[in-house]
C-alpha cells in the first residue's frame, strides 16, 4: 500500500496500459474474459482516483501528489506528474467514464481483444494529458491518444469510417503541428520543459528582449496562436469543427462516448492549463476573437444540430454547441482576469466540461442502444416509440433534459455560471449565445419528438423488427451517469468547491 500511496498518479496513469499489455497474452477467443478483464482493469484507476479525490487538499495551493521520473534527460524533459483541482476533476471524469464505456462495449463481438486493449491504451493517453506537468509529456500524451482512437473508428466504426478516421487523424495532427513547433521553441529557449519552471520564466521575460531574432511580443503572439489553433481544433471551435460530426457519427458507441466525454475536454483543458497561464496578455488581447468563435460555435452548433436527420449527428453537433460555452467562459475570464466575473466564468467553464462529459456520453450511449436494435439512425424512421420502450424513453428524456440545461440537472448549473460570469464582460456575445441556447432547446425537443412521440412507426412494433426494451447491462451504464447528473444538479457544491478553490489559486 505504501508504494501506491507514494506513486498514486503514476499507478492510475499506467495501470490501464499495463493491463492492456497483460491482455495481449491472454488466450485467444475468450471474449467474455476479455470484456470482464478490461472492465475490472478500468475500475482500478477509478477506485484509486477516488482515493486521490478524498486525500486531495483543495485549499492547498500548487500541485499535489507530485512525482518526477527521469525520461529524456538530454533535452530536459522528465515525467513530471501532479494534479490540482482542475486536473483532478478531469482525471475523475476520465476514470469514471472509461469503465462505463467498456461496459457499454460488451455488445461488441468482433475482435474483442484488440478493441478492449485500444480502450485501455486510450485511457492512459487521456489521463497523461491531464496529469502532465511537463510540456513535452503533455504533448506526448496528447499525440498518443490519437492512435487508439484512430483505430477504434477505423476498425469498428460504421459505413463511412475510412473517411472519418483519416479526417480525424489528419485534422488533429495538422492542428498539433503548431503545438509541436511552439513546444519545441519553448524548449529551445529555456532548456527545460517543466511547466512549473516555464510559468515563471516565460512570464518574467523582459518585454524588450530579443528571442530568435524577433521581439518577445511577436514570439509570444505566434506561439499563442499555435497553441490556440491546436486546442481550438480539439474543442472544437467553429470553424475548426468539421472533423467532429464525421468522427463522432462513425465511431463505435463507446468510442463516441469517450470522444465527446473526454477527448474534447483535452482541448479546453489545454486552454486552461497552458494558454491562460502562459499568455495572459495575449489571451486578453484576443479574447474578443475567441469569444466570437465561441459564439459562432454555440449558435451554428445549435442550428447545425437542429438541421440533422441522423440522430447521432444531431448529438454530435450538440457537442459543438455545448463546448462553445466552455470557450465562452474561458474567453470572458481571459478578458477580465482577476475579477470576480472571471472566477465565476471559469468555474462555469470547468464544471461545464465535467457536465458535458456526463451528458454527452449518456446521449451517445442512448443513440447506440437504439441503433443496435434498429440498425438505423435516421430520425425519420423512428417515431412514437415511447409505448414500446418506456424505460428507454424515460432515460432518454432525462438525459436530454440534462443536455438542454433544465434546472435541477447538472447542465443548468454550469451554463448559468458561464453566462453569469460572461455577461458583464462580453455582453453582446453572451446575449447572442442566449439565442443559441434557445435553439438548444429546439433541437433536443426535436430529437425526443422524432424518436419517442408522434405516430408510431408500426415497423418496430411487431415481428422480427420488434423493438426490445433497454436491458439490464445498458441500464447499469446509465445509472451512474444519471445519478451524477442529478447530484450535481441538486447539490453542485461538492465538486464546485474543489474547482473554485483551484480557480481562485490559479488565476
Amino acid at each position, binding site marked *: 500500500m505504501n508504494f501506491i500511496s507514494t506513486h498514486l498518479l503514476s499507478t492510475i496513469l499506467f495501470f490501464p496500459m499495463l493491463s492492456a499489455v497483460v491482455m495481449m497474452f491472454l488466450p485467444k477467443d475468450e471474449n467474455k474474459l476479455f470484456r470482464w478483464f478490461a472492465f475490472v482493469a478500468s475500475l482500478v484507476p477509478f477506485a484509486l482516483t477516488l482515493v486521490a479525490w478524498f486525500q486531495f487538499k483543495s485549499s492547498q495551493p500548487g500541485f499535489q501528489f507530485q512525482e518526477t521520473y*527521469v*525520461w*529524456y*534527460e*538530454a*533535452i530536459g524533459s522528465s515525467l513530471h506528474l501532479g494534479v490540482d483541482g482542475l486536473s483532478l476533476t478531469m482525471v475523475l471524469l476520465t476514470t469514471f467514464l472509461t469503465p462505463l464505456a467498456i461496459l457499454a462495449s460488451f455488445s461488441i463481438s468482433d475482435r474483442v481483444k484488440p478493441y478492449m486493449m485500444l480502450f485501455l491504451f486510450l485511457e492512459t493517453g487521456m489521463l497523461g494529458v491531464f496529469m502532465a506537468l511537463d510540456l*513535452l509529456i503533455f*504533448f*506526448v*500524451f496528447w*499525440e*498518443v491518444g490519437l*492512435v487508439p482512437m*484512430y483505430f477504434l473508428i*477505423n*476498425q469498428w466504426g460504421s459505413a463511412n469510417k*475510412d473517411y472519418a478516421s*483519416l479526417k480525424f*487523424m*489528419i485534422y488533429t*495532427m*495538422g492542428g498539433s*503541428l503548431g503545438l*509541436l*513547433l511552439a513546444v*519545441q*521553441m519553448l*524548449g*529551445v529557449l529555456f532548456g527545460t520543459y517543466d511547466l512549473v519552471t516555464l510559468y515563471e520564466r516565460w512570464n518574467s521575460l523582459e518585454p524588450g528582449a530579443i528571442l*530568435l531574432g524577433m521581439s518577445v511580443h511577436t514570439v509570444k503572439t505566434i506561439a499563442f496562436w499555435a497553441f490556440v489553433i491546436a486546442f481550438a481544433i480539439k474543442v472544437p471551435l467553429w470553424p475548426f469543427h468539421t472533423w467532429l460530426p464525421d468522427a463522432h457519427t462513425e465511431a463505435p458507441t463507446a468510442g463516441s462516448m469517450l470522444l465527446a466525454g473526454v477527448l474534447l475536454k483535452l482541448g479546453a483543458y489545454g486552454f486552461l492549463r497552458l494558454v491562460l497561464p502562459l499568455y495572459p496578455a495575449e489571451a486578453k488581447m484576443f479574447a474578443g476573437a475567441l469569444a466570437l468563435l465561441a459564439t459562432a460555435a454555440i449558435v451554428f452548433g445549435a442550428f447545425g444540430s437542429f438541421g440533422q436527420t441522423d440522430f447521432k449527428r444531431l448529438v454530435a453537433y450538440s457537442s459543438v454547441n455545448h463546448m462553445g460555452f466552455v470557450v465562452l467562459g474561458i474567453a470572458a475570464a481571459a478578458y477580465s482576469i482577476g475579477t470576480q466575473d472571471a472566477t465565476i466564468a471559469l468555474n462555469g467553464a470547468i464544471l461545464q466540461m465535467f457536465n458535458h462529459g456526463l451528458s454527452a456520453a449518456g446521449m451517445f450511449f442512448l443513440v447506440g442502444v437504439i441503433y443496435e436494435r434498429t440498425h438505423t439512425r435516421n430520425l425519420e424512421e423512428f417515431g412514437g416509440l415511447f409505448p414500446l420502450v418506456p424505460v428507454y424513453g424515460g432515460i432518454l428524456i432525462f438525459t436530454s433534459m440534462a443536455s438542454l440545461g433544465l434546472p435541477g440537472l447538472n447542465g443548468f448549473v454550469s451554463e448559468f455560471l458561464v453566462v453569469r460570469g460572461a455577461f458583464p464582460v462580453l455582453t453582446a456575445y453572451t446575449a447572442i449565445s442566449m439565442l443559441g441556447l434557445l435553439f438548444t432547446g429546439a433541437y433536443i425537443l426535436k430529437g425526443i419528438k422524432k424518436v419517442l412521440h408522434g405516430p408510431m412507426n408500426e415497423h418496430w412494433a411487431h415481428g422480427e423488427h420488434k423493438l426490445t426494451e433497454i436491458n439490464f447491462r445498458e441500464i447499469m451504464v446509465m445509472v451512474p451517469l444519471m445519478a451524477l447528473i442529478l447530484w450535481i444538479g441538486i447539490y453542485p457544491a461538492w465538486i464546485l468547491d474543489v474547482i473554485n478553490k483551484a480557480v481562485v489559486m490559479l488565476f
Partner: protein
Amino acid sequence: MNFPVLSVITFTPMVAALIILMLPAQRKNEARGVALAAATFALILSFWVYLTYDQAAAGYQFIEKYSWLPALGISLHFGVDGISAPLVLLTGVVMFTGVLISWGDDDKHVMAGIQDRPREFFAFLFLLAGGVFGVFVSLDLFMLFFFYEIAVFPMYLLIAIWGWIQTREYAAMKLTLYLFIGSVVSLVGVLAMYWLQYKNTGVLSFDMILMENAGFSQTFQNIWFLPVFLGFAVLGGIWPFHNWSPDGHVAAPTAVSMFHAGVLMKLGAFAALRVGIMLLPQGAHTWSWLIMLFAGIAVVYGAYIAFVQEDMKYMIGFSSVSHMGLVMLGMSTLNRNGIMGAGIQMFSHGVMTALFFAITGMIYDRSHTRQIPELGGMSKIMPFATIGFIIGGLVSMGMPFFSGFVAEFPIFMGVWEVQWLVAVIASISIVITAAYIMRNIRQVFFGAMPEKLEGHITDVTVLDKVAITTLCLFMIVIGLFPSFMVPLIETGVENVLRLLGGS
C-alpha cells in the same frame, strides 16, 4: 579487454561468407545454418560492445591497431565511439533479421525467402555486412574507404542476380555508378587531406584521430568540405543525389533492401559526419546552410513523393529519402541537439525501414504484387505482420513512445536554434507521412481482400515473427526509455562539438 572484439565482429561475416561458399551447392540448409549462426554471433558481440562501452570515459574505445602498410601510414585501426556503437548494433540487428526473413523453404509452395542459390546470396550479403561493420569501426581513413567500397560492390551483384526481374539490371547499374562516383569524389578530398597533413607534419598517416587535430587551414576546409561531405552523402540519399536510392530499394530482394535502407544509407551519413564534419569542421561551418537547404528539401519533397506512390516499395523508398533527410538536417545544425537527434534517427530509421521492407517482402512473396490498390485485407491472414507494420508506421510518423519521436524531436529543436523557418517547413512532412502511412495501412492490411488473392495468402513463418519482434522491440524500448540509447550517443556528440569548437 584484450579480446579483439571489433575485428572479430568485422571479420565474422567475411569468414562466414567463405565457409558458405565452400559448402556444396545443393546443401542449402547448411548454408542457411552457417549464416544464421554467424549473424547471431555478430549480433551478440555487437550488443556486448554496445552495453559495455564506458560512457563515463567516452572517446574511442575497444581500440585495436595493427600495422598494415606502414610505408604509406595505413594501419588496421579499429575503435568505436558513442555514435558508431549504436550503428554497429544496428548492423548486427539488421543482419540477424535479414537472415531470418531470407530463410526460404524448399518444400512449401509459397515463394518466401531466398530459394535460388542461397549459398551465393548469403555469401555476398555477408561480404556486404562485413564491409559495413568495417566502416563503422574504422579509425583509419584508408581502411574506412576500403570497407566502404567492399560494402557497395556486392550490392550490384545482389540486385542484378536476385532482384526484381523487371528493373534489376537498370537499378543495379544506376546504384553502383552513383555510389562510385560519389565515393571517388570523396576519395579525392581524402587524399588531399592526407597530403596536406604530410606536408604540415611530415608524418604519412591515414589515422583519423591524428587528422582530427591536424588543424587544416580555413581555405582548405572550405574547398574540400563540400566534395567530401556530398560524396558520402550520396549514399545517405541526400537530395538532389537521392535518385538511385528508391530504384535500388525496389529492385533489391527483401534482405538486401533491408540492408540497403537500414544500414547502407547510414553508412553514407556516418561517413559524411565522420570524415566531412569531424575532420573539416571549419568547412562545415561555412557550408552548413547549403546542407541544411538540401536536407530540408529532401525531408519535405521525399514525403510528398512517397505520398503519391502506388508501389509499396517505392513509397518506403521515398520515405527513406525523407527520413534520411532528417538525419542530414540534424547534422547540418552543427549543434548538440541536432547531431544527437541525427544519431538516434540513424538507428531508429534503420530498424524501422528494415521492418518495413521485411514486411513488404513477406506480402510480395505471397501476393506477387506490391501495388497498394491491388492489395487488401492482409490483417486477417497475417495479424502479426500487421501489428509490426503499424508499429513501424507509428515510428515513421514520429509518434511519441516510439523511437521516431525520440529522434525527431531533438533534430527539430536543433534546427530551431539555427533557423526556425526550416523547422516550420520541415515539420509539414510529419503530417504528410501520417497521411501516406495511414492510407497504406488501411488499404493493404484492412478492408476487403481482392478476390484474386483469396486462398493464396498464408501467414508469415515463425522465423519472420522472430525478426519482426526483434525489430519492434528496439523501436519500443528506445521510445519508452530514451536513456537506453541517448546518453551513449551524447558522449559521441560531445567529441563532435569539441571539434566544431564551442557550444
